[in-house]
């Protein structure tokens, strides 16, 4: 056993709260680590979340869930509940308003996934455990819940399919994966590559069901005014959400208004409408009064999406120098029997490393559970957990440093699409990270570093995340006082959207932060792609940037032509907006003063950005964000408890819009990486089809004590191919590969390779030798 000194390498800053973005030469407001503009509202409780909204005459709903996972409701007796004090309405499949059928299990197109009707209480069938079977609406939440306890139900239960591991033979190939990606890919011949490769890795990894668990559960306040429905809810993307509500209720989307100015976390489970929204809308219509419904934490597990259980087989063939000849990534995932969801778990593998022969495959195993939803970097989060561990296994097998192995397999262009990368600084991230982390002091032989009775290990992994752009429009207005208001139906799910959009508008218009107000979260505002897929900042930000450009154009035109303008007749082509002034050539004027003179009613303009997949730049370049994660863990040699000591992420994700909120995003992702590697798991009981540990005491997410020291570094990067801002998707990059770095550190500490996530102590303990006392 070697003894090493604890603590940081000499070249580290030693700061737990350090992050760095080099200032750009033209540094303005964009990029600055300014505080959240909505922060004071949040910390003083004045940011109103969905369930906190109130209206006159409000009634409260409580959803009763099914006690079985598959079968029919043979009998449902609501008489006692209806008589209970304070009860206004008990709704079941017998009296719920008509809704469209759920539709086919396999959803043919990507938009339909978000907009299809998802009816509630429209059938006597039970499709999954805890599916809503009744809604009680009463004077108070407590009265509704108490009355729900009085409903008597008799079921005709049917045998269901709940055990993923014994049903792999049922696997089928879906037509496409989530995000409309191809199910399989094949280049070259893996068989011949494998046969010839002197070094082979063939490893199977398992990842469990996981749940998003945002702090704020799903909640809706629905109210009707005539034929117009207003929904206060907690949603990530308003347009899709609205379309889903409208198609379920059978009304035009224009009659539905969604309001969601503050969202207490989403992580992908608030992209579509759930039963809280549909039932609140139906009940509010039936009762002609506002109705409020929230899921309980326990109800969140069955009714608000999950990440499905998966098995991944990774096969790598390499020469003795570690150069990959073949890459194969096969994924089997559970899915719902009534609505397909195929996480694109192996999709990133198509872009990450060079190899002449390569294949990826996605297969689905249908179970009688609710549909899976988009959870915290769908695809990369579970996929990199497996693949980046396999790379660690290969590095050890060929006797190479894991970073050197990755450098040797760095592709010159996208290895499957054959197009250049827009920017790719993966190697720089790894090298900068290695230097800062003190990577060279890691003992590559596992299980040898003991401090007291703690085994110390270090691991790393790469991070990659595709850059998406969604179609978005923003409207920006300037009033006679020079105050700017930007409006778009974008959401801020805790990520800092209000703040970065404020920075973008203020910088582009040459105004201080205080002169710009950003209003989000109302479907009456111009449509954006919302928050999801890490595309919110780049999509909404680009639209707003373009809207500001359009506004400036209008201002300049009027300034040159208006009789009241001090800049009338200024013809110079060189113009600028800075420090609250408009400049044309050598002449300048105060912006506020100019507007007052030439446009007492102010100006308004819109700007848009097209969906990335449709643009020439997107077709011509492989666009991703990259990073490198480093982790140091300690493992108790007696109990095999695993605890973090430190983590470092070095990220290259285009232009950073706000160094503080960007860092927070990455920190959050790293914390989720710890969760995925070490503790998150929902247990599906194959006898009953229910999620057993359905609360936050039993479903473990990392708590503060689990986090230890974290450092985030951003490399300077500007991706001009991505969008006018030069920014790329960031939010989910922090979780991509983070868990694998932790898992590889556990291996380095103990010499025990656990391929079944999460790595809880019981999986390490049997292989951990007793050390003399």
């Amino acid at each position, binding site marked *: 056993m070697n003894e090493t000194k604890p603590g940081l390498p000499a070249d580290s800053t030693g700061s737990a709260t350090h992050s760095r973005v080099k200032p750009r030469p033209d540094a303005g407001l964009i990029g600055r680590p300014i505080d959240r503009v909505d922060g004071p509202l949040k910390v003083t409780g004045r940011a109103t979340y969905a369930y906190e909204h109130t209206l006159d005459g409000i009634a409260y709903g409580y959803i009763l869930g099914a*006690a*079985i996972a598959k079968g029919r409701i043979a009998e449902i007796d609501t008489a006692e509940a209806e008589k209970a*004090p304070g009860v206004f309405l008990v709704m079941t499949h017998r009296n719920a308003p008509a809704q469209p059928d759920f539709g086919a299990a396999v959803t043919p197109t990507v938009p339909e996934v978000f907009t299809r009707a998802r009816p509630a209480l429209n059938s006597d069938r039970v499709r999954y455990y805890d599916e809503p079977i009744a809604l009680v609406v009463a004077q108070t939440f*407590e009265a509704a*819940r*108490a009355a729900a*306890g009085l409903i008597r139900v008799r079921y005709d239960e049917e045998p269901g399919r709940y055990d993923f591991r014994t049903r792999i033979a049922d696997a089928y190939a879906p037509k496409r994966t989530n995000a409309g990606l191809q199910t399989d890919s094949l280049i070259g011949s893996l068989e011949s590559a494998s046969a010839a490769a002197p070094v082979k890795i063939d490893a199977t990894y398992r990842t469990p069901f996981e749940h998003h668990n945002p702090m704020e559960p799903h909640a809706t306040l629905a109210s009707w005014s005539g034929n117009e429905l207003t929904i206060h809810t907690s949603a990530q993307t308003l347009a899709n959400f609205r379309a889903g509500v409208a198609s379920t209720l059978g009304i035009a989307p224009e009659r539905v208004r969604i309001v969601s100015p503050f969202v207490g976390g989403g992580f992908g489970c608030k992209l579509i409408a759930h039963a809280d929204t549909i039932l609140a809308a139906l009940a509010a219509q039936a009762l002609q009064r506002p109705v409020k419904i929230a899921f309980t934490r*326990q109800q969140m597990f069955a009714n608000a999406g999950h990440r499905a259980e998966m098995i991944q087989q990774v096969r790598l063939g390499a020469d003795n120098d570690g150069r990959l000849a073949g890459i194969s990534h096969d994924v089997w995932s559970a899915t719902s029997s009534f609505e397909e969801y195929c996480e694109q778990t192996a999709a990133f593998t198509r872009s990450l490393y060079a190899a002449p022969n390569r294949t990826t495959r996605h297969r689905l195993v249908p179970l009688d559970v609710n549909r899976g939803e988009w959870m915290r970097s769908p695809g990369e989060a579970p996929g990199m957990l497996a693949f980046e561990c396999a790379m660690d296994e290969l590095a050890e097998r060929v006797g190479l440093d894991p970073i050197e192995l990755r450098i040797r397999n760095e592709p010159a262009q996208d290895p499957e699409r054959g197009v250049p990368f827009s920017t790719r600084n993966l190697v720089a991230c790894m090298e900068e990270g290695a230097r800062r982390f003190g990577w060279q002091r890691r003992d590559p032989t596992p299980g040898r570093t003991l401090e007291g*009775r703690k085994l110390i290990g270090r691991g790393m992994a790469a991070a990659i995340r595709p850059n998406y752009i969604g179609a978005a429009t923003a409207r920006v207005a300037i009033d006679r006082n020079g105050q700017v208001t930007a409006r778009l139906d974008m959401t801020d799910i805790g990520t800092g959207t209000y703040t970065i959009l404020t920075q973008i508008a203020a910088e582009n218009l040459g105004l201080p932060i205080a002169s710009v107000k950003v209003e989000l979260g109302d479907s009456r505002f111009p449509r954006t792609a919302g928050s999801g897929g890490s595309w919110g900042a780049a999509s909404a930000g680009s639209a707003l940037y373009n809207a500001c450009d359009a506004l400036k154009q209008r201002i300049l035109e009027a300034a040159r032509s208006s009789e009241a303008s001090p800049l009338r007749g200024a013809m110079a082509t060189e113009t600028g907006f800075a420090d609250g002034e408009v400049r044309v050539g050598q002449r300048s004027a105060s912006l506020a003063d100019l507007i007052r003179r030439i446009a007492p009613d102010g100006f308004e303009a819109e700007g848009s950005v097209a969906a990335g997949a449709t643009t020439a730049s997107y077709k011509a370049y492989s666009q991703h964000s990259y990073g490198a994660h480093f982790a140091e863990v300690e493992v108790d040699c*007696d*109990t*095999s*408890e695993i*605890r973090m000591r430190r983590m470092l992420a070095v990220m290259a994700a285009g232009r950073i819009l706000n160094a503080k909120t960007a860092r927070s995003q990455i920190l959050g992702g790293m914390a989720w990486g710890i969760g995925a590697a*070490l*503790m998150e798991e929902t*247990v599906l*009981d194959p*006898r*009953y089809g*229910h999620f*057993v*540990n*359905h*609360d936050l*005491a*039993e479903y*473990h997410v*990392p*708590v*503060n*004590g*689990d986090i230890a020291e974290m450092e985030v570094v951003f490399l300077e990067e500007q991706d001009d191919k991505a969008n006018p801002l030069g920014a790329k998707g960031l939010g989910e990059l922090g979780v991509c590969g983070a868990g694998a770095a932790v898992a590889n550190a556990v291996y380095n500490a103990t010499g025990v390779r656990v391929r079944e996530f999460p790595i*809880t*102590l*019981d999986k390490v*303990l*049997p292989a951990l030798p*007793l050390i*003399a*006392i």
Partner: protein
Amino acid sequence: MQSFTYQRAESAEQAAAAVATRPNARFISGGTNLLDLMKLEIERPAHLVDISRLPLDRIEETDEGGLRIGAQVRNSDLAADPQVRSRYPMLAQALLAGASGQIRNKASTAGNLLQRTRCPYFYDRNMPCNKREQGSGCAALQGFNRMHAVLGASQACIAVHPSDMAVAMSGLDARIETISPERKTRTIPIGDLHRLPDTMPDMETVLDHGEMIAAVTLPPPPPGRQIYRKVRDRASYAFALVSVAAIVEKSGGRIRSARIAMGGVAPKPWRATAAEQRLTGATASDAAFTDAAEAALAGAVGHGGNDFKIPLAKRTVRHTLAAAVERA
């Protein structure tokens, strides 16, 4: 949650009488466990007697040099008490290892002792559970039982008692003082407070209906170093997979006396008396600690998901004893 009536108790005697005279009445104090169970309708009391404001919140030295802890002393206050910290450090460690700061601020000493299991099948009314509904079966036996008991369980129930505090108190030979209607009092050794499930897992303690815990008395601390070691899945806010409270008194190279109590392994705080006896007089050595650990887990039975608790508990006992000796 079903509707209930509520009264605030004026005195201990009145509280005991108020519960004793109503078959479906319950005491409530911090409510950190009972309210959760009521919301899920696992507990459906018709009447609650609030004892949280009774003047049972003092920590006093006893004539014999021990400590008398009022039943309503909050977990946070008990953990912060200077006497507890200096003379019963194991108890302070156990308290601070339990729950979260917010819960400890509300939870009472008596409530902590009487908290109910966290078995997820007990918490789900759609699942069979003999503790919740006698005769319905035990879903955990063949189910997800990673957190469950390896000692003292039965075919009817394999749930564990989740308390950390009670494990330390068990090692400290605490005595439970109770009061019943007509001022009847009795003292129960902590080892006798909780019942093993056998065929009646719904009967969790020896307390009569309406019998209220008034105080917990600790004898003077035994000589030797005290350690509470909790092994859990995350650094905070997680129930024990295994916990060990150990007190070891050493003289020269030999162990004069030892106390070992375990949590997370049984339906009650589990005192490992056989292991204690084997240590008495033994040379303080890895062999002796290993032997004691084996004795502590003698007869342990896993149910699949919790098999790992047996080697884990042995390793934890061994190392905790060694740590107690090392620091003694």
